[in-house]
């Protein structure tokens, strides 16, 4: 493997920082740690395994078939299928985008004290400007670099000296220690937060933007594992920090201002700013990804010219799409809708919709005409199918319980 390939790990990291570690992951991991200590670590591990498989498949698909997932779905499953799934998924993507914009606004509120809804328009504008003026490579590299600030979560987790035995048990035992309805709902929210559909659509489009081919298959596996592994370690660190800081003192996590104190016991005043910066940057990456995904999918499905590296004048419909998506997604934050509530809602919705997204993807991954000898093995199929069905079943069962249980 060429050394230069190692730099392509940046695609993995940005996908991870944006798609994996975002406001949803941060909120749900913190909630999990505060309420159930280390008991939900296994869910993060499960979500990570599923996402590594998905991202690897997504990259392999793009590299071998030279299609993006969306374009291939239209070709193989038809125009009608495309339209229906696009409409449903875009609603989820735009809700996710709205949550991420809210996340950035909250980070800014934490640091400046200015209420978050006043930040909605400026934040949306900056996100749009970066997409309009930037190129894919530029965004990929900068977000990957800035995203490294999230390592502060890992530092915080280590410095909190968690009891390793309890941590290890959190990976093995999955029975709820108390309050089963709330436990499973949190588990479902974590899965919905981690396995975001826009994540692997983005990755496949990115692989095409970066012009991957069959020689990338091996490096793709490494990139997927390291990239998602990175995000996973950070998510687990957040859970551990929350367990040590909040659970130990019986404090629940209802407000973002509380979560912001996650790193202060271990890192002092710096911890507060590092948290805000990590939240802001992770959400910023997520904004770019989800906005691009809405545009990628429409353009690829309808046969428009597309590409973040393409100047907007050459891909006007594509550029207009992400512009409109950002504008619409800024509305909830501008109206003062609670970003935390919106996030939790979106994550649960994502979990329900997951099989509808993943099963068509699986049909493509087994298509010999597109992938030749690189079709999925039984493990890849099994893992993805199992987790998506699990997530959906849990979601359908626990969402009503949570709504009616309190």
């Amino acid at each position, binding site marked *: 493997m060429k050394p230069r390939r190692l730099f392509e790990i940046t695609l993995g990291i940005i996908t991870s920082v944006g798609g994996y570690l975002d406001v949803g992951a941060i909120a749900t991991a913190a909630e999990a740690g505060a309420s159930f200590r280390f008991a939900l670590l296994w869910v993060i591990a499960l979500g990570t395994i599923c996402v590594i498989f998905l991202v690897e498949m997504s990259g392999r698909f793009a590299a071998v078939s030279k299609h993006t997932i969306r374009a291939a779905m*239209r070709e193989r499953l038809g125009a009608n299928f495309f339209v229906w799934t696009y409409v449903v998924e875009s609603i989820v993507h735009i809700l996710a985008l709205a949550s991420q914009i809210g996340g950035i606004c909250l980070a800014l509120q934490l640091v400046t004290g200015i209420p978050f809804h006043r930040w909605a328009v400026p934040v949306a504008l900056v996100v749009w400007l970066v997409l309009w003026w930037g190129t894919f490579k530029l965004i990929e590299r900068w977000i990957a670099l800035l995203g490294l600030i999230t390592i502060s979560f890992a530092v915080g987790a280590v410095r909190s000296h968690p009891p390793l035995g309890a941590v290890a048990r959190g990976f093995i035992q999955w029975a709820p220690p108390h309050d089963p309805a709330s436990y499973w709902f949190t588990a479902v929210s974590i899965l919905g937060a981690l396995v975001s559909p826009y994540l692997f659509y983005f990755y496949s489009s990115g692989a095409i933007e970066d012009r991957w081919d069959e020689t990338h298959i091996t490096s793709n596996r490494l990139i997927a594992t390291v990239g998602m592994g990175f995000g996973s370690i950070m998510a687990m660190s957040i859970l551990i920090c929350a367990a040590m800081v909040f659970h130990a003192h019986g404090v629940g996590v209802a407000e973002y201002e509380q979560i912001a104190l996650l790193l202060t016991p271990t890192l002092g005043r710096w911890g507060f700013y590092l948290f805000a910066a990590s939240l802001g940057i992770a959400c910023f990456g997520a904004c770019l990804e989800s906005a691009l995904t809405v545009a990628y999918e429409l353009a690829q499905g309808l*046969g428009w010219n597309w590409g973040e590296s393409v100047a907007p004048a050459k891909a006007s*419909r594509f550029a207009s799409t992400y512009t409109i998506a950002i504008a619409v997604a800024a509305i909830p934050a501008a109206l003062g809708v609670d970003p935390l509530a919106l996030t939790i809602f979106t994550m649960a919705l994502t979990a329900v919709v997951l099989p509808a997204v993943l099963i068509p993807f699986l049909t493509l991954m087994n298509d010999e005409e597109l992938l030749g000898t690189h079709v999925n093995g039984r493990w890849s199929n099994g893992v993805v199918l199992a987790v998506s069905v699990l997530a959906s079943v849990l979601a359908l069962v626990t969402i009503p319980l949570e709504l009616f249980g309190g």
Partner: protein
Amino acid sequence: MTRTSYHVMRHLIDNALVDRSDTPMGNVDDLTIELRDGSPPRITHIETGGTAMTRGLTWPFGALLGALAMRWGAGRGEPFRVPWSYVLDVGVDVQVDVDAYDTTALHWERVLRDRIVAYIPGSRP
């Protein structure tokens, strides 16, 4: 041509359509068939855009987008037709020997570009 025989649904319908310089110009939304007495039916044209695109959609999108295409579409809903003889290659995409910007397939792309996008700084390389 890379093939001499095709599965129409698999290799042609809903596949991406590109012009001679690989610029995307939509999808192969439909194909015109000429029926002949005593001879096999012939596919004569590729159709893209307009109502060709909306034909394959169920309610409500088919009706909704069809109405939009007829009201606002470049050819008032009429799809753009390319004779099959213009096909250069059928592989990942279906490539035809035209210039996309000369056709109605990119009408809205041009309109958006010239009326809005071009005025925003940073839109050109």
